[in-house]
């Protein structure tokens, strides 16, 4: 099963990119500091708005801060928000969606009501209000807010799946055997949802990275922390586009796009694993089939 998963080129590329960014987030800041001697916050007054080149591989911004160091430090900030937001969102989705689908009845009515409420609530204005209300928002708070407001869609999907699994014979059989509710949910139903949950998690991660960038762009973030979002926001505030300082906003934007693409590629693989009908024919199979058709035609 594992090897089948890794056989797809989409998954391999996606995983490679994701792992690269994860490593960058974990070790990158230390690396830039000790190897290049770059500090993302230091102002190099001798090099203001310098294009990529000597001493500053990705140039500097208008305050003379090194862009490479900022992108690397931003990877840590963005990935942190992405992972934490996704963990919170997915966990709430599981805790709300699966019991709702499994138990049905009143539990479902109550939980589904909450889900629907969160589904129709205008998330962005709410996030802005909450973020504005919680003065001095750090990245953790932002991540928690994103997770807390972004679980409803996933909960609906999980509810539907859990509902169909709860009515399968093997759940009935285990219940007849005397298995209790919680164990039924976690040992019988949840394993069938792992593919879905994994893909939901990746989806939530892209969502959280983008949401953080979006919030930072709108000015809702901790201005002292560095993330790709705050970088883009800084570029926007200083009209980097008009002034042609592309190295200020292209690298973080590209990183966000890359992470999104990578997560989507891995998701394809997970989908294929969870739903064999989507699985594309492997080249070997295609070749064999063609060969057979040819010999069959000749005979």
């Amino acid at each position, binding site marked *: 099963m594992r090897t089948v998963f890794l056989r797809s080129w989409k998954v391999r590329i996606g995983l490679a990119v994701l792992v690269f960014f994860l490593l960058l987030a974990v070790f990158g800041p230390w690396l830039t500091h000790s190897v290049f001697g770059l500090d993302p916050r230091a102002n190099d007054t001798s090099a203001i708005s310098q294009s990529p080149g000597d001493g500053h591989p990705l140039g500097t911004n208008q305050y003379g801060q090194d862009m490479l160091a900022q992108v690397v430090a931003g990877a840590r900030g963005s990935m942190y928000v992405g992972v934490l937001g996704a963990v919170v969102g997915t966990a709430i989705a599981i805790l709300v969606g699966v019991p709702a689908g499994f138990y049905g009845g009143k539990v479902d009515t109550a939980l589904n009501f909450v889900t629907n409420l969160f589904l129709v609530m205008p998330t962005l204005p709410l996030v802005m209000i909450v973020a504005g209300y919680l003065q001095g928002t750090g990245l953790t708070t932002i991540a928690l807010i994103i997770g807390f407001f972004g679980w409803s869609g996933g909960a609906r999907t999980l509810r539907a799946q859990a509902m169909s699994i709860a009515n399968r014979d093997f*759940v009935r*059989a285990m219940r007849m055997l005397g298995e209790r509710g919680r164990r039924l949910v976690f040992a019988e139903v949840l394993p069938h949802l792992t593919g879905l949950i994994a893909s939901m998690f990746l989806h939530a991660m892209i969502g959280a990275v983008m949401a953080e960038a979006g919030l930072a762009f709108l000015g809702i973030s901790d201005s002292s922390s560095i993330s790709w979002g705050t970088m883009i926001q800084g570029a926007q505030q200083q009209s980097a586009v008009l002034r042609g300082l592309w190295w200020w906003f292209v690298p973080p934007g590209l990183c966000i796009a890359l992470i999104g693409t990578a997560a989507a590629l891995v998701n394809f693989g997970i989908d294929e694993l969870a739903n064999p009908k989507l699985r594309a024919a492997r080249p070997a199979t295609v070749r064999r089939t063609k060969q057979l058709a040819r010999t069959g035609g000749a005979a």
Partner: protein
Amino acid sequence: MSKPAIETGSTDNASTDTASADSTSTATRRARTAKDPKNPKAAKDRHPEEPAHTPEYVLEARDVSKHFTVRGALGRTTVVHAVEDATVRLKPGQILALVGESGSGKTTLARMLARFHEPTSGEIVLRGEAVSRSGRARRGYHSEVQLIFQDPFGSLNPMHRVRYNLDRALRLHHRHLTAAEREERTTQLLERVSLTPAAEFAAKFPHELSGGQRQRVVIARALAVEPKVLLGDEPISMLDVSIRLEMLNLLQRLRTEDGLALLYITHDIASARYLCDDIAVMYAGQMVESGPKEAVIASPQHPYTKLLIESSPDPERGVGDREAFFAGADELGEPPSLIDPPTGCRFHPRCPFAMKECGEQAPPRAELGDGHWAKCWLHARGRAGELADTTHAAATAARREALQGAS
């Protein structure tokens, strides 16, 4: 009649006591429960009331009915009368076949006995005690009664190995067993259902097994509980023909070796004849005839039973005969709607012997001796002899001619 509190007492004892595996006869357990100081009501109530009754039947459904309420798209509610006043009784070591066409309520009855559905009316009686609806009683109930599902491809979780299934059953019902003892018991169970080498099968996932092997795992899982009653909901209908006989022999062996009572639900008269002692026939949610298998199959006393038996394939019938026999197949009619069942006898719209009273009043139960009974007006009107003299097809043809002659 309802004594809900008693159930938990007796079965809790049962689930802890079955460990000794060999000495769990009904009598000893009952004696123990009766002496149980926490349960004085059990001791007091049981003996004066129906003293002969308790030992005789292990599981009964007394006049159970199940109505399902269906909500239509426009908010209209309709009631489906899936099972109506059905009575089933199982003695230890007895195999009762429940036959009938699709939609006749066989499975619903089995699911009521397995307590997936609560009966709308009537009661389920285990060892002479009406079972209560509480969750705790349910677990106790399921340590004595287990259901084998129709579809072995659906009743095993594809995510779990065979070992997990058996281990969970043992863990839930025999709490005091150590891991090593459970492992040993697992091996025994797999050998019991002829899945050898047991160690190899225990490590397999359901998708690595064939349908017959899966069904054996399902049976082994049910047996791990050490039940007294097995409910087989068409346990062989999804299996390949070549392994059906093996499964029937396995069930037969369980009965003779363990004294298991078995309710065998099927629409295959041949397998019912092979396996069971008694046959009960259901039509449109009602029991229409019941009795010892030879009596029911050789001389059916209800027109529907006759139709059912005559329409099962018989290799001795010649090809020409067969064509003549099924010439009237189009006229046999359709199973009735259970939402709006026919009045009187539910079979009367399809019955070639139907009389005026058949459409007006439900027929009385006619006792025919030796536990054989049928619910048909022919017996009350002294026309029972007509059934034996003709075949269903011939009777249908005769009736058609009579009707045409009259008009």
